[in-house]
């Protein structure tokens, strides 16, 4: 079996900069999710990539929403094909960094507990 590669273009940066894009090559595995690829990138290529996820497989935590080719999806259920994809953060939420946006419910924000807002 030859090692196939999947390509991802990933949006980087915080709210104060113009976004940039990094390209990552990831070993392709049948049925892999976009989240699998992003986790692989953090462990093998660039651990500074920010992503948010928890349950990884079960699709119950609902923390991993991102845009893949402009469409809002769960990174853990969006399948990676052999075509390159572009991954970006949700656009209707405050951007924290890279793919992570502020999805914390208002009453559960740490800034509220700390009296910052």
């Amino acid at each position, binding site marked *: 079996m030859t090692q196939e590669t999947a390509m991802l273009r990933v949006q980087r940066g915080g709210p104060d900069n113009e976004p940039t894009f990094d390209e990552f090559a990831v070993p392709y595995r049948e049925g892999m999710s976009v989240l699998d690829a992003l986790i692989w990138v953090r*462990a093998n290529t660039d651990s500074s990539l920010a992503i948010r996820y928890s349950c990884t497989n079960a699709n119950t935590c609902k923390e991993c929403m991102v845009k893949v080719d402009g469409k809002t999806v769960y990174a853990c259920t969006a399948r990676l094909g052999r075509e390159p994809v572009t991954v970006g953060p949700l656009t209707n939420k405050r951007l924290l960094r890279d793919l*992570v946006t502020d999805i914390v419910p208002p009453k559960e924000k*740490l800034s509220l*507990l*700390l009296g910052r807002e």
Partner: protein
Amino acid sequence: MAAEVSTDVLVVGAGGAGMYAAISAARNGADVVLVDKSLISRGGATIMAQMTVAAAVGEQEPDHWTHHLRDTLEAGRGLCNEELAAVLCEEAPVRIREMEEWKVGWAREGNHLKQVMAPGHQVERCVYVDFLNTGPAVAKTLRTQLGRADNLRRAGELTVTDIIVDGDQVVGAVGLDVETGEPVRIEANAVILAAGGLTRLYQRNSASVNMGGDSYALALRAGAELIDMEFVQFFPIGHLAPRMVGMDPIMWDPFRYKLGGRLLNADGKEFVQNYGHAETTDKYTAPRDVVSFAILQEVAAGRGSPAGGAFLSFKHIPEDELRSAFGPVIDRLAENGIDLRERSVEVAPIAHYHMGGIRVNTRMETQVSGLYAAGEAVGGANGANRLSGNAISEAFVFGERAGRFAAGAAAGRDREWSDAAAESAVERIRASRDISATDYGPSLAGLLVDLQEIMWRDVGLLRTEGGLAAALRRIREMRREIGDRPSESDHRFALSMQDWFDLWNGLLAAETIVLGAIKRTESRGAHQRDDFPRTDPGQAQNLITRLEGDALCVETTALVKNPIAVEPLEANR
């Protein structure tokens, strides 16, 4: 300087145990703060649980909590803390009914709760929420109750990194504000550790990313003791291949239970019966440890599936039977390209639950004044092997108790935050400010993957002295490599700092498992030694771990016995 947050009771971890503890502490009069490194109710095992919750409510058929206790002690292979186990079984029905009042929606049949059989139980005892929805329903119900409680504040994205002890009294905790990378100091009269288990430390697991052993490391560093850390439960037929997304890897259990799937080796032959247990295709009766062992041996003998497990086949089952048993799930499988009529799947044992944990009494108190524990973080109730369905009950019962007793202890006491006691914990987080955002060392996320591989290979289902010794050496090396403070920083959404704390905690928790596994020179329940295949009655004792300076010490202690007669059954419906 004053702490940023001040409260009577701080609860660390917002899964089933932590949410119950927070609700209970609040209704017992305490001011409560509940925090989670992920989001409230979403980060841990609770929301992922699909199946059943064990409690002797006796609605399906006559039952009594002493019968539940008997089954729990039997599964625990002689090592259960019998006082904790009794509390768990006696109070589980009370919590199940309270959850029912809170409208969790347990499945019903006619005018009673529907209860089903599960392996190891002698009666139909397990409640659930349809369809495969127990965990999400439990999480949602408890979160709603959080919102209704007085004096209860809650926040996500705060990773607790140290419990602060002044003299011998807990005075609060320090955490990492994940969004800003800054330290947060929380003053509290009592702290409840409900930060869940450690199965993420294994390469093959059913865990979320937040189940890496923080509970145990936080407890040890605060001066508390752990019990029986060598007992990690493996689930025999976790999903292995093909990659399946949006599905829980332990999903095949109900399939097999209801329909009787066939476990096959690479030659297409059934093999479980060759390992001392006759298994028939229409009934799924072999105990979990036997099935796990059998799969492992087939793989070792070169008869494993391509991904390193066994094949699970439902090809012999007619389509209409598949459909009527699992309707919508069959469609989700189809989306994953899995047609059970056409192809078999590959399964293998995966790390699923931790029996060991923080040592507590029935008031959920640790040895440190003001420090409590609840949920999977607690050790002892399930001994060497957990009965299925006991984990969610344990989260409810121990959570409720921890909240109640912590509220009692915290009431009326002055808060006594100490900046001196918290200094090193605060500095550990601040130190990362000096690291430039581009200064990335060896990838910490990659090191965690290495740790997972070591744990799987050498500290997994079948252990040997040589393998354990090699794991211990490597883990200690890694502990030295990562140092005593974060080496990477990202200053905003501090995932790399989080990685460092994950490793710091995970390596310590991993070492406690290895040390326990070395010391226990026998096979019992979930702890199987290839070089000591038999259970040694002389080792019917618990192993206690504590941290002295930088070194972990393990010693034996006598079992906690609490003989209780099994009550005769009468119909109570």
